[in-house]
């Protein structure tokens, strides 16, 4: 028996729509098996993971809060992946954006600085993220160095830099030696949408980003260029598109969005800068981008779904003592299934059973 791929004459649009759903279904089946292996009741565990967070207002808000950075980063990454360049260092750009914006928050702390502080922080975060993303992009365009490896290496560098700042110069003097800055002033904090709630202005910004990306990709020449360079590099060359310029552009946009997401996260739900404030949003966003089929609206839905797994994972840890790492396993398995199902869009799978006659014909 042999598995054979046959290229479809035309890409299947039906499967393009249902493949993420098939992937989620397969992941849930696999997770049930994993829960059973861990000695937990699969039905109960799946309920805690996927249903319980949807039943109370606090968790629903928390899902939107967690989806905000995921969606913003994934939109930027999708532009890179559509152009067939691989920014996998969004986590580093996210951290550097948080650091750059926090700089202003720390410097203006306790002063009578006005409401300009927060917009300036957001701008700083976006600019720093873009510049940090341009390092691997320039190394690629100018020297031909693999952007995959350089962008990933810079994640570790950003992480260590943040660690240095909050343990050294930016440490809160009144913080009992904990590695964290002081709580940001109200003018340096992202406002919540409803008094007493968790949902903050960042969610609106994320929606604007989704809309802007949809317009960019569907209605502008630049968006068209990005897709052509990715899908048909030769055609793009004949069309006179400058692929190097597009690499720089897509990296800058994705870095800016990751940096913006970073400072919104720190100045919003977290409220201060500390090491490990990100549960790996920059990496999870890679899964969000693929699960959303590199489409802005798809990414919005996928971001909410993966945010649900973060919340579900936390609740499962509290309620059923299921280790938090299960969430990462879940996310990894999900990405595998998404990619495998995507293969169905271009290929038909066929099992071939070798018949005896073929063999006897050889003799």
């Amino acid at each position: 028996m042999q598995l054979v791929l046959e290229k479809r004459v035309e890409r299947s649009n039906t499967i393009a729509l249902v493949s993420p759903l098939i992937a989620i279904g397969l992941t849930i089946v696999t997770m049930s098996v994993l829960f059973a292996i861990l000695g937990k009741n699969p039905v109960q565990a799946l309920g805690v993971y996927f249903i319980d967070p949807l039943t109370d207002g606090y968790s629903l808000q928390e899902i939107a809060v967690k989806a905000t950075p995921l969606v913003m980063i994934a939109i930027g990454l999708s532009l890179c992946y559509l152009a067939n360049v691989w920014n996998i260092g969004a986590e580093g750009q996210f951290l550097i954006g948080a650091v750059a914006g926090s700089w202003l928050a720390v410097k203006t702390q306790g002063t009578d600085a006005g409401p300009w502080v927060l917009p300036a922080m957001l701008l700083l975060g976006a600019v720093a993220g873009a510049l940090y993303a341009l390092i691997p992009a320039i190394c690629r365009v100018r020297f031909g160095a693999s952007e995959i490896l350089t962008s990933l290496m810079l994640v570790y560098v950003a992480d260590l830099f943040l660690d240095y700042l909050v343990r050294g110069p930016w440490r809160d003097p009144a913080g009992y030696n904990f590695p964290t800055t002081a709580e940001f002033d109200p003018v340096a904090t992202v406002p919540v949408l409803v008094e007493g709630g968790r949902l903050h202005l960042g969610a609106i910004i994320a929606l604007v980003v989704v809309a802007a990306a949809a317009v960019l990709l569907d209605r502008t020449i630049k968006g068209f260029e990005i897709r052509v360079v990715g899908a048909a590099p030769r055609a793009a060359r004949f069309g006179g598109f400058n692929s190097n310029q597009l690499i720089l552009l897509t990296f800058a946009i994705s870095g800016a969005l990751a940096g913006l997401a970073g400072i919104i996260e720190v100045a919003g739900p977290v409220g201060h800068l500390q090491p490990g404030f990100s549960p790996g949003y920059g990496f999870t966003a890679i899964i969000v981008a693929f699960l959303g089929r590199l489409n802005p609206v798809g990414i919005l839905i996928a971001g909410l779904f993966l945010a649900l797994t973060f919340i579900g994972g936390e609740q499962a840890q509290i309620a059923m003592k299921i280790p938090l790492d299960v969430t990462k396993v879940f996310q990894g398995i999900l990405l595998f299934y998404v990619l495998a199902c995507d293969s169905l869009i271009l290929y038909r799978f066929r099992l071939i059973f070798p018949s005896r006659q073929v063999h006897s014909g050889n003799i």
Partner: protein
Amino acid sequence: MEIFEAIILSVLAASTPLLIAATGELVTERSGVLNLGVEGMMIVGAACGFGGAWLTGSITVGAICGIGAGTLLSLIFALMTLGLAVNQVASGLALTILGVGLSGLIGAGFVGERITPAPHLYIPGLTDIPMVGRILFGEDAFVYLSLALVIGVWLFLYRTPAGLVLRAAGDNHVSAHALGYPVLRIRLFAVMFGGACAGLAGAYLPLAYTPFFIPGMTAGRGWIALALVVFASWFPGRLVIGAYLFGAVTILQLHAQGLGLGIPSQFMSALPYLATVIVLVLISRARTGGSTAPAALGTVFVPDR
């Protein structure tokens, strides 16, 4: 001179996992497959390797567990990229994400436990030679194994017909297929070899480098191994130079932290990662004339029928 000897010994120990993982990945890439999941296979190898050694008390069993775990994970990757023609970059990333989660699950039961690390060779007389004795004749078995591995891979790639076929599959899969070579099967074995090496490299960390398991203990070594393959221009011999250079950077920054030069420790810890970026830029720049990378590296192959 004691300190000099100690530094060389620790450089060799820090370089060995890089060398083993990079050697495996080099074979995988020479067959035309880019497996970015080295970090994921290493960290699962570390968790399973430690688990095996802790349960049985045997370093050998631990190493075998690590190899087995790495190979199993590489089979998932092979199914995706060779069986289902999925993009190799994305699949490799998925493998790393999955591996980090799995290692946390597997290793959760062992955190805080200790084992007796792998013994070092001792040959009376030879190992006692001042200066070079312990460096040449007093290493753990993995160090010698890693060097044997490099020589073996070099002999295989350049001195055997099978090695030639493997390189052909990596340079032009269409021609190799037309000549009747089973491209996908060759790549399957190459991916499995890469997985086995990554698993062993991961297992080295808790079995010999530090005798305990902590989550995330590979700390990007899998990614540095990938960069080393580029550094070596896909030649096994140059891997040795690259790996020992990186081991040296890692150890020297540790010693510099200990000396208290007034430089924040985080800046020193960032050095190996920054060095990787700089080396990648320099190597890629020097190669503008023509790349030595396998020509079909990273491209999907679906045989025509």
